[in-house]
């Protein structure tokens, strides 16, 4: 299991991020995991002097998640990627690529979310 992880919900996200910024943490990244039952886990990782601290947020495809890129500018690229690949509704990102950061116009929609629209052929 990951150590130093705490569960929060979408209302607490911005206040917890402000708190962590005042304590001097550095933003490392955010990860998204699809639980294959309609919910997704968003995990935010922060670092101070080599020790990691994580926050887990459980959402569905319809939940509105506020963006933390106004507090941590470095989060804008990873939030665009999560919005595009997993179809999570993140609003208010500082620069929004509109779903075309990594995928082009002819690519399948949200390829990493369940149910997967991609089959890997074994010939």
């Amino acid at each position, binding site marked *: *299991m*990951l150590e130093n992880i705490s569960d929060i919900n979408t209302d607490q996200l911005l206040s917890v991020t402000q708190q962590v910024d005042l304590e001097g943490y*550095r*933003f*490392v*990244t955010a*990860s*998204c*995991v*699809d639980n294959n039952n309609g919910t997704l886990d968003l*995990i935010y*990782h922060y670092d101070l*002097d*080599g020790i*990691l601290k994580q926050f887990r947020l459980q959402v569905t495809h319809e939940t509105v998640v506020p963006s933390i890129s106004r507090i*941590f*500018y*470095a989060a*804008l*690229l*990873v939030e665009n990627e999560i919005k595009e690949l997993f179809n999570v509704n993140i609003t208010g990102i500082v*620069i929004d*690529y509109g779903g*075309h*950061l*990594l*995928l*082009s116009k002819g690519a399948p929609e949200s*390829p*990493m979310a369940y149910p997967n629209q*991609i089959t*890997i052929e074994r010939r």
Partner: protein
Amino acid sequence: MPKSVIPFGPQHPVLPEPLQLKLVLQDEKVVEAIPAIGYVHRGLEKLTETKDIQQNIFVVERICGICSFMHALAYCQGIEELMNVQVPDRARYLRVVWGELHRTHSHLLWLGLLADSFGFESLFMQAWRCRERVMDLMEMTAGSRVIISTNTIGGTRRDIDRETLGHIISEVDIIQAELKEFEQVFMYDYTVQHRLRGVGVLTKEDAYKLGAVGPVGRASGLAQDMRSSLRYAAYNELDIEPIVETEGDSYARTMVRIRELHQSADLLHQVYDKIPDGEIAVPVKGFPTGEVISRVEQPRGEVLYYLKANGTKNLERVRVRTPTFANIPPLMHMLPGSLLSDVPVLILCIDPCISCTER
């Protein structure tokens, strides 16, 4: 004055990999820069969900060609922590040997590309001639020049005997002697100083706030190096300190990488004295469960692996955050205010590895 928008890239002679920057210019000075990536997206994170744990090492190694050993190392360390596997001591030292050889060849490649970005082609060729010795060493010890595939879960696949290790040390001494000849040009030459000093200054507070990692962060005064904070592999028995400069301009980033080359040579000498005998791998059976995070210092910075397993032979999620992904926001902050002719030098200063960024 009206502003003009110039697309820099995705194909440009100075870029090693395709990256597009839309530069908003006013009178030769850059006002704003917006990156556009996605030209080499291969969907490797999705592919790892369909292969089993040993086959994933080969997928993950091919995310990047220059730092490929460290990707496999971070993945193997994560799985070993999940399955409680104790790696033998000799394997941990061998991983340090190959890791430091990779760091040497990556920094020599970067020095050549930097010289090419301001037009100094003969210095570019000198650096790459020196790098050929490292590629020959990798072929001799691991069988292949670029993607060496020597990591496995529980240790390494090949051994290096004492005589070959002595040959590696003598070649590294020759590389250090050749490096001392042409590093003088980077450090003291009149035209090179004009291109590098005072260009793209990143202060210490900005570097921390924007999440800069690797030599970009260390050149601005942040003393963070995963080898000395986390002490993975055999680094807990070796003597290592992060190399820090304070000015934060392109000259400081060049100096950090040149001094890291000397530090790698010194670390290899320490390994030659201290490496123990023993076996190189332990057999591993069963499937992992749980989630883990493992971090390793690549030549470009800190890479983070988040692995989630549920007890079957396939992993549920492999998430990779590479250092160039974290260094793009500092680049967007450094570019406004610089001249158009400094843009290639600034892009190369963060050492962009776009195939790592997009996976």
